[in-house]
């Protein structure tokens, strides 16, 4: 491992320990007077209706899917941006082609209404 990452590891271990300690102490000193009503799911004081785990709009799935695709695009943009100054016009046209193709996809999903949430 590059030595730069050693402090990150130390930091990570300490933060994990801190979070665990806080949760532990809080569970230990907190009062505990459970009752059936208190432990039921919150539903504005009404008795809970049905199960919470219902099926949801497909739009959430679509957004997750599109997010992955554009995230992959962004993953390509970073190394490109780092070396951009040495690539000059070649780098510009390279990425221009890439982004134009993806922009076509973007226009398609826009026109298909995949980005409209009101429906």
């Amino acid at each position: 491992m590059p030595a730069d990452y050693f402090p990150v590891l130390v930091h990570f271990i300490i933060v994990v320990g801190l979070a665990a300690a806080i949760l532990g102490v809080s569970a230990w000193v907190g009062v505990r007077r459970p009752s059936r009503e208190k432990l039921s799911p919150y539903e504005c004081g009404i008795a809970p209706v049905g199960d919470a785990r219902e099926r949801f709009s497909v739009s959430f799935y679509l957004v997750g899917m599109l997010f992955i695709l554009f995230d992959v695009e962004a993953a390509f943009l970073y190394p490109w941006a780092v070396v951009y100054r040495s690539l000059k016009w070649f780098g510009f046209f390279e990425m221009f082609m890439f982004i134009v193709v993806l922009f076509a996809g973007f226009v398609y999903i826009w026109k298909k209404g995949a980005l409209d949430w009101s429906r």
Partner: protein
Amino acid sequence: MAALFYIVAGVAVLAALSVVLQRTPVYSALSLIVVLCSLAVLYLLIGAEFLAVIQVIVYAGAIMVLFVLVIMLLNARRETPGDRSRLAPLLGAPLLAVFLAEFFFVIVKQLPRGSESSAAPLDSGPAAIGGLLFRNYVLPFEVTSVLILVAILGAVVLAKKEL
């Protein structure tokens, strides 16, 4: 260094087993996230820091988010052991044995004799990867855009919006 490798590799293997053995889908997905993150640490250990962060961003931070969302959307519950095929263990066990044997054979054969000499640190920072990708491998990079475009169309078709 070596100790860290064995710890992280052990975590990766245990989490991978947990992906298969868990009956609650969300637990499986969480285990898979652990596998992917420990892979990222393994990449770090051989000095591939750019690959490590991209692994976390794309796999753990994007693809697994979709997995978890879909599990929540479909309301996938605890899996109940149903009618299993009787043929499965009969066929599966020998196949597993064969695959494992092959796997170990290849590993033992490919393993460099001696020490970690072959794992000489490469320059795998963002600048080196960018130089390679955008000078030597321009065509694969441009073709990727078409691949992503196709995937975008596929996502919309699957979600059946306005079709």
